[in-house]
Protein backbone atom coordinates (compact mmCIF):
# COMPACT_ATOMS: atom_id res chain seq x y z
CA UNK A 1 0.00 0.00 0.00
CA UNK A 2 3.02 2.29 0.21
CA UNK A 3 2.50 3.54 -3.32
CA UNK A 4 -0.83 5.16 -2.47
CA UNK A 5 1.12 8.40 -1.99
CA UNK A 6 2.14 8.32 -5.64
CA UNK A 7 -1.49 8.69 -6.65
CA UNK A 8 -3.04 11.97 -7.64
CA UNK A 9 -6.40 13.50 -6.82
CA UNK A 10 -8.49 11.77 -9.44
CA UNK A 11 -6.81 8.39 -9.01
CA UNK A 12 -7.44 8.49 -5.26
CA UNK A 13 -11.03 9.60 -5.64
CA UNK A 14 -11.80 6.96 -8.27
CA UNK A 15 -9.93 4.27 -6.35
CA UNK A 16 -11.85 5.00 -3.18
CA UNK A 17 -15.13 5.04 -5.08
CA UNK A 18 -14.28 1.72 -6.75
CA UNK A 19 -13.27 0.13 -3.46
CA UNK A 20 -9.66 -0.49 -4.53
CA UNK A 21 -8.60 0.98 -1.19
CA UNK A 22 -10.28 2.89 1.58
CA UNK A 23 -10.07 6.62 2.19
CA UNK A 24 -8.65 5.79 5.62
CA UNK A 25 -5.75 3.86 4.05
CA UNK A 26 -5.00 6.86 1.85
CA UNK A 27 -5.12 9.30 4.76
CA UNK A 28 -2.88 7.07 6.87
CA UNK A 29 -0.33 6.79 4.06
CA UNK A 30 -0.13 10.55 3.56
CA UNK A 31 -0.15 11.25 7.30
CA UNK A 32 2.90 8.97 7.56
CA UNK A 33 4.71 10.83 4.76
CA UNK A 34 3.91 14.16 6.39
CA UNK A 35 5.18 12.96 9.77
CA UNK A 36 8.43 11.75 8.21
CA UNK A 37 9.19 14.97 6.34
CA UNK A 38 9.91 17.44 9.12
CA UNK A 39 13.18 18.35 7.33
CA UNK A 40 11.20 20.03 4.57
CA UNK A 41 9.32 22.23 7.08
CA UNK A 42 6.40 22.31 4.66
CA UNK A 43 3.75 22.32 7.40
CA UNK A 44 3.25 24.79 10.22
CA UNK A 45 0.79 22.48 11.95
CA UNK A 46 -0.25 18.98 11.00
CA UNK A 47 -3.79 17.74 11.43
CA UNK A 48 -3.71 13.95 10.93
CA UNK A 49 -6.93 13.62 12.93
CA UNK A 50 -8.73 15.93 10.50
CA UNK A 51 -7.58 13.83 7.54
CA UNK A 52 -8.65 10.60 9.24
CA UNK A 53 -12.06 11.93 10.29
CA UNK A 54 -12.79 13.14 6.76
CA UNK A 55 -11.64 9.78 5.37
CA UNK A 56 -13.81 7.83 7.78
CA UNK A 57 -16.80 9.95 6.81
CA UNK A 58 -16.16 9.15 3.13
CA UNK A 59 -15.73 5.42 3.83
CA UNK A 60 -18.99 5.41 5.82
CA UNK A 61 -20.83 7.21 3.04
CA UNK A 62 -19.54 4.73 0.50
CA UNK A 63 -20.57 1.81 2.68
CA UNK A 64 -24.03 3.32 2.96
CA UNK A 65 -24.22 3.66 -0.81
CA UNK A 66 -24.42 7.45 -0.70
CA UNK A 67 -23.14 9.68 -3.48
CA UNK A 68 -19.54 10.78 -3.00
CA UNK A 69 -18.16 14.26 -3.69
CA UNK A 70 -15.64 15.21 -6.38
CA UNK A 71 -12.78 15.22 -3.83
CA UNK A 72 -14.04 12.28 -1.75
CA UNK A 73 -11.22 10.54 0.07
CA UNK A 74 -8.52 12.97 -1.06
CA UNK A 75 -6.41 14.36 1.79
CA UNK A 76 -4.93 17.74 0.91
CA UNK A 77 -2.62 20.36 2.33
CA UNK A 78 -4.16 23.74 3.18
CA UNK A 79 -2.04 26.84 2.76
CA UNK A 80 -1.99 28.56 6.14
CA UNK A 81 -3.64 31.62 4.66
CA UNK A 82 -7.10 30.02 4.71
CA UNK A 83 -9.08 30.37 7.93
CA UNK A 84 -9.82 26.92 9.32
CA UNK A 85 -12.18 26.66 12.25
CA UNK A 86 -10.40 25.71 15.46
CA UNK A 87 -7.08 25.12 13.69
CA UNK A 88 -4.31 27.71 14.05
CA UNK A 89 -4.23 30.11 11.08
CA UNK A 90 -1.18 32.36 10.97
CA UNK A 91 -0.34 33.57 7.45
CA UNK A 92 3.14 32.48 8.67
CA UNK A 93 3.33 35.60 10.83
CA UNK A 94 4.15 35.96 14.52
CA UNK A 95 1.35 38.50 14.72
CA UNK A 96 -1.22 35.71 14.23
CA UNK A 97 0.55 32.95 16.14
CA UNK A 98 -2.04 31.07 18.18
CA UNK A 99 -4.99 32.55 16.26
CA UNK A 100 -7.73 29.94 15.95
CA UNK A 101 -10.53 31.16 13.69
CA UNK A 102 -14.10 30.71 14.79
CA UNK A 103 -15.12 30.21 11.20
CA UNK A 104 -14.09 28.39 8.03
CA UNK A 105 -13.04 30.02 4.75
CA UNK A 106 -15.43 29.48 1.86
CA UNK A 107 -12.84 27.68 -0.26
CA UNK A 108 -11.77 25.25 2.48
CA UNK A 109 -15.42 24.58 3.40
CA UNK A 110 -16.20 23.76 -0.22
CA UNK A 111 -13.30 21.32 -0.30
CA UNK A 112 -14.47 19.58 2.89
CA UNK A 113 -18.02 19.50 1.48
CA UNK A 114 -16.61 17.75 -1.61
CA UNK A 115 -15.10 15.05 0.61
CA UNK A 116 -11.50 16.24 1.01
CA UNK A 117 -9.65 16.02 4.32
CA UNK A 118 -6.87 18.20 5.74
CA UNK A 119 -3.36 16.90 6.37
CA UNK A 120 -2.25 20.19 7.89
CA UNK A 121 -1.64 23.88 7.41
CA UNK A 122 1.13 24.63 4.95
CA UNK A 123 3.99 27.03 5.45
CA UNK A 124 4.23 30.11 3.22
CA UNK A 125 5.91 33.45 2.93
CA UNK A 126 4.68 35.72 5.68
CA UNK A 127 1.32 37.20 4.57
CA UNK A 128 2.12 35.63 1.17
CA UNK A 129 4.79 38.29 0.62
CA UNK A 130 7.79 36.62 -0.94
CA UNK A 131 9.04 34.42 -3.74
CA UNK A 132 11.18 31.93 -1.82
CA UNK A 133 9.29 31.05 1.38
CA UNK A 134 12.08 32.68 3.39
CA UNK A 135 9.92 35.34 5.06
CA UNK A 136 7.91 32.88 7.17
CA UNK A 137 8.04 33.30 10.93
CA UNK A 138 8.03 29.50 11.10
CA UNK A 139 11.24 28.97 9.17
CA UNK A 140 12.23 28.31 5.58
CA UNK A 141 10.65 25.56 3.53
CA UNK A 142 13.11 23.32 1.70
CA UNK A 143 12.57 22.46 -1.94
CA UNK A 144 12.59 18.64 -2.20
CA UNK A 145 14.63 19.02 -5.41
CA UNK A 146 18.40 19.36 -5.29
CA UNK A 147 20.78 20.26 -8.08
CA UNK A 148 22.90 17.44 -9.51
CA UNK A 149 26.04 19.58 -9.49
CA UNK A 150 27.53 17.86 -6.49
CA UNK A 151 26.68 20.72 -4.16
CA UNK A 152 24.24 20.07 -1.41
CA UNK A 153 22.61 23.51 -1.29
CA UNK A 154 19.03 23.56 -0.09
CA UNK A 155 16.92 25.31 -2.72
CA UNK A 156 13.95 27.62 -2.34
CA UNK A 157 10.58 25.95 -3.09
CA UNK A 158 9.32 29.23 -4.51
CA UNK A 159 6.80 31.44 -2.86
CA UNK A 160 4.57 32.40 -1.49
CA UNK A 161 2.92 28.96 -1.71
CA UNK A 162 6.23 27.23 -0.91
CA UNK A 163 4.85 24.78 1.65
CA UNK A 164 2.20 23.79 -0.89
CA UNK A 165 4.67 23.22 -3.71
CA UNK A 166 7.15 21.31 -1.54
CA UNK A 167 4.44 19.09 -0.05
CA UNK A 168 2.96 18.14 -3.41
CA UNK A 169 6.34 17.57 -5.08
CA UNK A 170 7.52 15.41 -2.15
CA UNK A 171 4.36 13.27 -2.11
CA UNK A 172 3.30 14.56 1.30
CA UNK A 173 -0.02 15.47 -0.28
CA UNK A 174 -1.62 14.70 -3.65
CA UNK A 175 -2.66 18.33 -3.92
CA UNK A 176 -2.71 21.55 -1.96
CA UNK A 177 -4.39 24.90 -2.01
CA UNK A 178 -2.38 27.91 -3.04
CA UNK A 179 -3.07 31.59 -3.44
CA UNK A 180 -1.65 33.79 -6.15
CA UNK A 181 -1.25 37.57 -5.88
CA UNK A 182 1.63 38.10 -8.31
CA UNK A 183 2.65 34.53 -9.11
CA UNK A 184 2.46 32.71 -5.79
CA UNK A 185 0.91 29.57 -7.28
CA UNK A 186 2.71 29.49 -10.62
CA UNK A 187 6.27 30.30 -9.53
CA UNK A 188 6.45 27.68 -6.74
CA UNK A 189 4.80 25.12 -9.04
CA UNK A 190 7.51 25.78 -11.63
CA UNK A 191 10.27 25.51 -9.01
CA UNK A 192 9.09 22.07 -7.89
CA UNK A 193 7.99 20.38 -11.10
CA UNK A 194 4.24 20.41 -10.40
CA UNK A 195 1.18 22.11 -11.91
CA UNK A 196 -0.88 24.94 -10.51
CA UNK A 197 -3.58 27.25 -11.79
CA UNK A 198 -4.70 30.69 -10.73
CA UNK A 199 -8.25 31.09 -12.07
CA UNK A 200 -9.85 34.33 -13.25
CA UNK A 201 -10.02 36.90 -10.46
CA UNK A 202 -13.29 36.30 -8.61
CA UNK A 203 -13.71 32.60 -9.45
CA UNK A 204 -12.75 31.51 -5.94
CA UNK A 205 -14.17 33.33 -2.95
CA UNK A 206 -11.69 35.36 -0.93
CA UNK A 207 -13.89 35.09 2.17
CA UNK A 208 -11.80 33.71 4.98
CA UNK A 209 -8.47 34.05 3.16
CA UNK A 210 -6.05 36.33 5.02
CA UNK A 211 -5.94 39.40 2.77
CA UNK A 212 -2.73 40.63 1.15
CA UNK A 213 -3.72 42.66 -1.95
CA UNK A 214 -7.45 42.28 -2.41
CA UNK A 215 -7.65 43.26 -6.08
CA UNK A 216 -5.09 40.58 -6.95
CA UNK A 217 -5.49 37.73 -4.43
CA UNK A 218 -6.95 34.58 -5.93
CA UNK A 219 -6.96 30.99 -4.67
CA UNK A 220 -6.21 27.98 -6.82
CA UNK A 221 -5.09 24.35 -6.73
CA UNK A 222 -1.58 22.91 -6.94
CA UNK A 223 -1.22 19.27 -7.93
CA UNK A 224 0.86 16.87 -10.00
CA UNK A 225 -1.31 16.82 -13.12
CA UNK A 226 -3.47 19.18 -15.13
CA UNK A 227 -6.48 16.95 -14.66
CA UNK A 228 -6.04 16.96 -10.88
CA UNK A 229 -5.89 20.76 -10.96
CA UNK A 230 -9.11 20.82 -13.00
CA UNK A 231 -10.91 18.51 -10.57
CA UNK A 232 -9.82 20.47 -7.52
CA UNK A 233 -10.46 23.89 -9.04
CA UNK A 234 -14.01 22.74 -9.75
CA UNK A 235 -14.45 22.05 -6.04
CA UNK A 236 -12.93 25.38 -4.96
CA UNK A 237 -14.66 27.77 -7.37
CA UNK A 238 -18.14 29.21 -7.23
CA UNK A 239 -20.16 32.29 -6.41
CA UNK A 240 -20.07 33.47 -2.82
CA UNK A 241 -22.23 36.41 -1.74
CA UNK A 242 -19.87 36.96 1.20
CA UNK A 243 -17.15 38.20 -1.18
CA UNK A 244 -18.20 41.38 -2.99
CA UNK A 245 -15.83 40.59 -5.88
CA UNK A 246 -16.96 36.97 -6.28
CA UNK A 247 -18.02 36.21 -9.84
CA UNK A 248 -21.69 35.38 -10.14
CA UNK A 249 -21.17 32.83 -12.90
CA UNK A 250 -21.71 29.09 -13.18
CA UNK A 251 -18.68 26.84 -12.63
CA UNK A 252 -18.00 24.84 -15.81
CA UNK A 253 -17.12 21.14 -15.61
CA UNK A 254 -13.48 21.83 -16.41
CA UNK A 255 -12.31 18.30 -15.72
CA UNK A 256 -15.06 16.74 -17.82
CA UNK A 257 -14.37 19.04 -20.76
CA UNK A 258 -10.57 18.59 -20.83
CA UNK A 259 -9.43 18.20 -24.40
CA UNK A 260 -5.85 18.35 -25.61
CA UNK A 261 -6.83 18.61 -29.27
CA UNK A 262 -5.94 22.21 -30.12
CA UNK A 263 -6.80 22.16 -33.81
CA UNK A 264 -8.31 25.50 -34.79
CA UNK A 265 -6.80 27.23 -31.73
CA UNK A 266 -4.18 29.94 -31.79
CA UNK A 267 -1.36 30.25 -29.31
CA UNK A 268 0.19 33.69 -28.86
CA UNK A 269 3.90 34.10 -28.17
CA UNK A 270 4.55 37.50 -26.56
CA UNK A 271 7.75 38.95 -27.98
CA UNK A 272 8.33 41.19 -24.93
CA UNK A 273 8.87 38.12 -22.74
CA UNK A 274 12.01 37.30 -24.70
CA UNK A 275 14.08 39.59 -22.52
CA UNK A 276 17.80 40.25 -22.75
CA UNK A 277 19.78 37.93 -20.58
CA UNK A 278 17.06 35.32 -20.18
CA UNK A 279 18.53 31.94 -19.31
CA UNK A 280 19.14 29.88 -22.48
CA UNK A 281 17.52 26.81 -20.93
CA UNK A 282 14.36 28.80 -20.15
CA UNK A 283 14.23 29.85 -23.80
CA UNK A 284 14.81 26.26 -24.94
CA UNK A 285 11.97 25.08 -22.69
CA UNK A 286 9.74 27.76 -24.22
CA UNK A 287 10.66 26.52 -27.71
CA UNK A 288 9.73 23.00 -26.63
CA UNK A 289 6.35 24.30 -25.51
CA UNK A 290 5.77 25.99 -28.85
CA UNK A 291 6.59 22.75 -30.68
CA UNK A 292 4.31 20.70 -28.42
CA UNK A 293 1.34 23.03 -28.90
CA UNK A 294 1.90 22.97 -32.67
CA UNK A 295 1.95 19.20 -32.48
CA UNK A 296 -1.40 19.37 -30.68
CA UNK A 297 -2.80 21.16 -33.71
CA UNK A 298 -2.55 24.79 -32.61
CA UNK A 299 -1.40 27.60 -34.82
CA UNK A 300 1.33 29.70 -33.26
CA UNK A 301 1.18 33.48 -33.72
CA UNK A 302 3.35 36.34 -32.48
CA UNK A 303 1.64 38.80 -30.18
CA UNK A 304 2.81 41.95 -28.47
CA UNK A 305 2.25 43.01 -24.86
CA UNK A 306 4.05 46.37 -25.06
CA UNK A 307 3.67 47.37 -21.40
CA UNK A 308 5.18 44.17 -20.01
CA UNK A 309 8.22 45.92 -18.55
CA UNK A 310 5.96 48.19 -16.50
CA UNK A 311 3.99 45.36 -14.89
CA UNK A 312 6.45 44.70 -12.09
CA UNK A 313 6.87 48.34 -11.05
CA UNK A 314 3.08 48.79 -11.16
CA UNK A 315 2.65 45.67 -9.05
CA UNK A 316 5.12 46.92 -6.46
CA UNK A 317 2.97 49.99 -5.99
CA UNK A 318 -0.49 48.41 -6.13
CA UNK A 319 0.21 45.36 -3.96
CA UNK A 320 1.99 47.22 -1.11
CA UNK A 321 -0.68 49.93 -1.18
CA UNK A 322 -3.44 47.38 -0.71
CA UNK A 323 -1.37 45.50 1.85
CA UNK A 324 -0.82 48.62 3.93
CA UNK A 325 -4.58 49.09 4.11
CA UNK A 326 -5.42 45.43 4.69
CA UNK A 327 -2.80 44.89 7.38
CA UNK A 328 -3.92 47.93 9.37
CA UNK A 329 -6.24 45.48 11.14
CA UNK A 330 -3.37 43.89 13.09
CA UNK A 331 -3.38 46.23 16.03
CA UNK A 332 -3.10 43.99 19.08
CA UNK A 333 -6.70 44.59 20.06
CA UNK A 334 -9.00 42.06 18.43
CA UNK A 335 -6.83 39.03 17.76
CA UNK A 336 -3.24 37.96 17.53
CA UNK A 337 -0.18 39.30 19.25
CA UNK A 338 -0.23 42.22 21.66
CA UNK A 339 2.96 43.94 22.80
CA UNK A 340 2.17 46.41 25.56
CA UNK A 341 5.32 47.99 26.90
CA UNK A 342 5.18 49.04 30.56
CA UNK A 343 3.18 52.23 30.88
CA UNK A 344 2.46 52.45 27.13
CA UNK A 345 -0.67 54.07 25.70
CA UNK A 346 -2.82 52.82 22.84
CA UNK A 347 -0.72 54.31 20.01
CA UNK A 348 2.50 52.94 21.51
CA UNK A 349 0.85 49.56 21.85
CA UNK A 350 -0.09 49.53 18.14
CA UNK A 351 3.45 50.44 17.08
CA UNK A 352 5.13 47.99 19.45
CA UNK A 353 2.75 45.17 18.50
CA UNK A 354 3.29 45.67 14.79
CA UNK A 355 7.06 46.00 15.22
CA UNK A 356 7.18 42.73 17.15
CA UNK A 357 4.66 40.83 15.03
CA UNK A 358 5.54 41.62 11.42
CA UNK A 359 8.68 40.34 9.70
CA UNK A 360 11.02 42.65 7.75
CA UNK A 361 9.48 42.03 4.30
CA UNK A 362 5.97 42.70 5.62
CA UNK A 363 7.12 45.92 7.28
CA UNK A 364 8.88 46.96 4.09
CA UNK A 365 5.72 46.49 2.05
CA UNK A 366 3.38 48.12 4.55
CA UNK A 367 5.67 51.14 4.72
CA UNK A 368 6.08 51.30 0.95
CA UNK A 369 2.30 51.15 0.62
CA UNK A 370 1.84 53.83 3.25
CA UNK A 371 4.27 56.03 1.36
CA UNK A 372 2.70 55.64 -2.09
CA UNK A 373 -0.76 56.33 -0.64
CA UNK A 374 0.32 59.32 1.42
CA UNK A 375 -0.83 62.86 0.68
CA UNK A 376 1.15 64.44 -2.12
CA UNK A 377 2.41 61.15 -3.58
CA UNK A 378 -0.88 59.32 -4.25
CA UNK A 379 -1.35 60.50 -7.84
CA UNK A 380 2.29 60.15 -8.85
CA UNK A 381 2.47 56.57 -7.63
CA UNK A 382 -0.86 54.86 -7.01
CA UNK A 383 -3.03 56.54 -9.64
CA UNK A 384 -0.26 56.21 -12.22
CA UNK A 385 0.13 52.51 -11.38
CA UNK A 386 -3.60 51.91 -11.76
CA UNK A 387 -3.52 53.66 -15.14
CA UNK A 388 -0.63 51.45 -16.22
CA UNK A 389 -2.66 48.50 -15.00
CA UNK A 390 -5.42 49.54 -17.41
CA UNK A 391 -2.83 49.57 -20.22
CA UNK A 392 -1.53 46.13 -19.28
CA UNK A 393 -5.05 44.75 -19.39
CA UNK A 394 -5.62 46.47 -22.73
CA UNK A 395 -2.46 44.82 -24.10
CA UNK A 396 -3.87 41.42 -23.19
CA UNK A 397 -7.28 42.22 -24.68
CA UNK A 398 -5.64 43.20 -27.96
CA UNK A 399 -3.45 40.11 -27.94
CA UNK A 400 -6.51 37.92 -27.40
CA UNK A 401 -8.03 39.34 -30.57
CA UNK A 402 -5.30 37.34 -32.31
CA UNK A 403 -5.01 34.24 -30.16
CA UNK A 404 -6.85 31.99 -27.68
CA UNK A 405 -4.11 31.44 -25.14
CA UNK A 406 -0.64 32.83 -24.47
CA UNK A 407 2.43 30.68 -23.86
CA UNK A 408 5.44 32.00 -21.93
CA UNK A 409 7.96 30.80 -19.37
CA UNK A 410 6.71 30.84 -15.77
CA UNK A 411 9.95 32.10 -14.24
CA UNK A 412 13.23 33.57 -15.50
CA UNK A 413 15.30 30.87 -13.74
CA UNK A 414 15.01 27.50 -12.04
CA UNK A 415 14.91 27.25 -8.24
CA UNK A 416 17.74 29.16 -6.52
CA UNK A 417 19.46 28.34 -3.23
CA UNK A 418 17.89 29.59 -0.01
CA UNK A 419 19.57 32.83 1.02
CA UNK A 420 20.63 33.68 -2.53
CA UNK A 421 18.43 36.75 -2.94
CA UNK A 422 17.49 37.45 0.64
CA UNK A 423 19.61 40.58 0.96
CA UNK A 424 18.29 42.18 -2.20
CA UNK A 425 14.51 42.69 -2.27
CA UNK A 426 14.59 43.91 -5.86
CA UNK A 427 16.38 40.83 -7.16
CA UNK A 428 13.76 38.74 -5.37
CA UNK A 429 10.91 40.75 -6.91
CA UNK A 430 12.31 40.20 -10.42
CA UNK A 431 11.51 36.51 -10.05
CA UNK A 432 7.87 37.37 -10.71
CA UNK A 433 8.54 39.26 -13.94
CA UNK A 434 6.65 36.72 -16.10
CA UNK A 435 3.82 35.98 -13.68
CA UNK A 436 2.79 39.45 -12.50
CA UNK A 437 1.25 40.76 -15.77
CA UNK A 438 -1.54 38.14 -15.80
CA UNK A 439 -2.24 38.90 -12.13
CA UNK A 440 -2.60 42.61 -12.80
CA UNK A 441 -5.07 41.80 -15.60
CA UNK A 442 -7.03 39.28 -13.47
CA UNK A 443 -6.56 36.52 -16.05
CA UNK A 444 -6.48 32.75 -15.55
CA UNK A 445 -2.91 31.49 -15.70
CA UNK A 446 -1.27 28.14 -15.12
CA UNK A 447 2.19 26.65 -14.79
CA UNK A 448 2.97 23.13 -16.01
CA UNK A 449 6.36 21.42 -15.84
CA UNK A 450 8.30 21.17 -19.09
CA UNK A 451 11.71 19.59 -18.49
CA UNK A 452 14.70 19.39 -16.19
CA UNK A 453 17.54 21.80 -16.79
CA UNK A 454 21.20 20.76 -16.97
CA UNK A 455 21.37 20.84 -13.17
CA UNK A 456 18.46 18.42 -12.94
CA UNK A 457 16.00 21.07 -11.75
CA UNK A 458 12.46 21.43 -13.12
CA UNK A 459 11.36 24.32 -15.33
CA UNK A 460 7.79 25.46 -15.89
CA UNK A 461 5.77 26.79 -18.81
CA UNK A 462 3.03 29.33 -18.27
CA UNK A 463 -0.31 29.53 -20.06
CA UNK A 464 -2.42 32.67 -19.80
CA UNK A 465 -6.01 32.68 -21.00
CA UNK A 466 -8.86 35.10 -21.58
CA UNK A 467 -10.93 36.09 -18.57
CA UNK A 468 -13.27 33.20 -17.66
CA UNK A 469 -11.57 30.82 -20.09
CA UNK A 470 -9.85 28.48 -17.64
CA UNK A 471 -10.81 25.65 -19.99
CA UNK A 472 -8.47 26.84 -22.74
CA UNK A 473 -5.64 27.24 -20.24
CA UNK A 474 -6.20 23.74 -18.87
CA UNK A 475 -6.53 22.23 -22.36
CA UNK A 476 -3.27 23.76 -23.53
CA UNK A 477 -1.65 22.68 -20.25
CA UNK A 478 -2.85 19.14 -20.89
CA UNK A 479 -1.45 19.20 -24.43
CA UNK A 480 1.95 20.16 -23.01
CA UNK A 481 1.73 17.58 -20.22
CA UNK A 482 0.98 14.80 -22.72
CA UNK A 483 3.98 15.71 -24.84
CA UNK A 484 6.62 16.75 -22.32
CA UNK A 485 6.75 13.29 -20.79
CA UNK A 486 7.70 15.01 -17.54
CA UNK A 487 7.62 12.35 -14.84
CA UNK A 488 10.76 13.23 -12.90
CA UNK A 489 10.59 13.13 -9.12
CA UNK A 490 12.93 14.58 -6.52
CA UNK A 491 15.22 12.01 -4.95
CA UNK A 492 14.23 11.52 -1.32
CA UNK A 493 16.75 13.06 1.14
CA UNK A 494 14.41 14.30 3.88
Amino acid at each position, binding site marked *: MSDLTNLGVKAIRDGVAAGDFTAREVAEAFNANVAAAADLNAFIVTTPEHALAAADAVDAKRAAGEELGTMAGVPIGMKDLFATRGVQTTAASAILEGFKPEYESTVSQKLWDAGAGMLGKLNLDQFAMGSSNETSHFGNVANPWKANDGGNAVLAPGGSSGGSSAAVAARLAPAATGTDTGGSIRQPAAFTGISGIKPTYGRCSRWGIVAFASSLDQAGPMARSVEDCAVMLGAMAGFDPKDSTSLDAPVPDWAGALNADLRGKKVGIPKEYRMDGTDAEILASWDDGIAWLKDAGAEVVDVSLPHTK*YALPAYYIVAPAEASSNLARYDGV*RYGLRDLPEGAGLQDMY*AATRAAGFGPEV*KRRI*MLGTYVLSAGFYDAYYTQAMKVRTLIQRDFNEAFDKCDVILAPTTPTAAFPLGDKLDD*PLAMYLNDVFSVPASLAGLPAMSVPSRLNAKGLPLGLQLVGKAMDEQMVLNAGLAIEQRSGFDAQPEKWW
Partner: protein
Amino acid sequence: MSVTREQVAKIASLARIKVDEGDLDHFVPEFNAILGFVEQLGEVDTSSVEPMTAVIPQHLRLRDDVVDADPLTGGGKQAEVLANAPVAEHGFFGVPKVIE
Protein backbone atom coordinates in the same frame (compact mmCIF):
# COMPACT_ATOMS: atom_id res chain seq x y z
CA MET B 1 12.75 60.60 -6.10
CA SER B 2 14.54 59.37 -3.02
CA VAL B 3 13.55 59.41 0.60
CA THR B 4 15.54 60.57 3.60
CA ARG B 5 16.00 58.85 6.91
CA GLU B 6 13.55 61.31 8.47
CA GLN B 7 10.94 60.56 5.82
CA VAL B 8 11.22 56.82 6.36
CA ALA B 9 10.87 57.35 10.10
CA LYS B 10 7.76 59.43 9.43
CA ILE B 11 6.30 56.73 7.16
CA ALA B 12 6.92 54.13 9.85
CA SER B 13 5.12 56.31 12.34
CA LEU B 14 2.16 56.72 9.95
CA ALA B 15 2.11 52.94 9.49
CA ARG B 16 2.21 52.49 13.29
CA ILE B 17 5.38 50.40 13.15
CA LYS B 18 8.03 51.15 15.74
CA VAL B 19 11.47 51.29 14.12
CA ASP B 20 14.85 51.83 15.70
CA GLU B 21 18.00 53.27 14.22
CA GLY B 22 19.20 49.86 13.13
CA ASP B 23 15.95 49.25 11.20
CA LEU B 24 16.35 52.58 9.44
CA ASP B 25 19.89 51.68 8.41
CA HIS B 26 18.55 48.99 6.11
CA PHE B 27 15.06 50.31 5.31
CA VAL B 28 16.31 53.61 3.84
CA PRO B 29 18.55 52.13 1.10
CA GLU B 30 16.02 49.34 0.37
CA PHE B 31 13.28 51.90 0.02
CA ASN B 32 15.31 54.00 -2.33
CA ALA B 33 16.20 51.00 -4.48
CA ILE B 34 12.54 50.04 -4.80
CA LEU B 35 11.41 53.60 -5.43
CA GLY B 36 14.12 53.98 -8.05
CA PHE B 37 12.76 50.86 -9.74
CA VAL B 38 9.10 51.92 -9.73
CA GLU B 39 10.09 55.40 -10.91
CA GLN B 40 10.14 54.09 -14.52
CA LEU B 41 6.32 54.15 -14.51
CA GLY B 42 6.69 57.89 -15.04
CA GLU B 43 7.84 57.14 -18.64
CA VAL B 44 4.40 55.84 -19.60
CA ASP B 45 2.05 58.34 -21.21
CA THR B 46 -1.21 57.84 -19.36
CA SER B 47 -2.77 61.20 -20.15
CA SER B 48 -5.74 59.59 -21.89
CA VAL B 49 -6.03 56.49 -19.69
CA GLU B 50 -8.48 55.90 -16.85
CA PRO B 51 -7.12 54.20 -13.74
CA MET B 52 -8.40 50.65 -13.32
CA THR B 53 -11.24 50.38 -10.83
CA ALA B 54 -12.22 46.73 -11.22
CA VAL B 55 -10.07 44.07 -12.81
CA ILE B 56 -13.10 42.06 -13.95
CA PRO B 57 -16.19 44.15 -14.76
CA GLN B 58 -18.80 43.59 -12.09
CA HIS B 59 -21.86 45.32 -10.74
CA LEU B 60 -21.89 45.86 -7.03
CA ARG B 61 -24.51 43.77 -5.35
CA LEU B 62 -26.74 44.74 -2.46
CA ARG B 63 -27.74 42.07 -0.03
CA ASP B 64 -31.30 41.73 1.16
CA ASP B 65 -32.04 44.17 3.96
CA VAL B 66 -32.72 41.42 6.46
CA VAL B 67 -31.19 41.04 9.91
CA ASP B 68 -28.86 38.03 10.06
CA ALA B 69 -29.73 37.07 6.47
CA ASP B 70 -26.55 35.01 6.51
CA PRO B 71 -26.06 33.51 9.94
CA LEU B 72 -22.31 33.16 9.28
CA THR B 73 -21.84 36.90 9.08
CA GLY B 74 -24.82 38.01 11.17
CA GLY B 75 -24.83 39.29 14.71
CA GLY B 76 -25.12 37.65 18.12
CA LYS B 77 -21.57 36.30 18.09
CA GLN B 78 -19.99 38.17 20.97
CA ALA B 79 -18.21 35.16 22.39
CA GLU B 80 -16.78 34.13 19.01
CA VAL B 81 -15.68 37.69 18.23
CA LEU B 82 -13.86 37.96 21.55
CA ALA B 83 -12.45 34.43 21.52
CA ASN B 84 -9.07 35.44 20.05
CA ALA B 85 -8.72 38.82 21.74
CA PRO B 86 -5.46 39.30 23.67
CA VAL B 87 -7.50 40.92 26.44
CA ALA B 88 -11.29 40.69 26.75
CA GLU B 89 -13.12 41.97 29.81
CA HIS B 90 -16.82 42.19 30.60
CA GLY B 91 -17.71 41.30 27.03
CA PHE B 92 -15.49 43.98 25.50
CA PHE B 93 -12.02 44.25 24.00
CA GLY B 94 -9.58 45.47 26.62
CA VAL B 95 -7.15 48.27 25.69
CA PRO B 96 -4.83 50.49 27.70
CA LYS B 97 -6.36 53.63 29.16
CA VAL B 98 -6.91 56.22 26.41
CA ILE B 99 -8.43 59.07 28.46
CA GLU B 100 -6.55 60.53 31.40
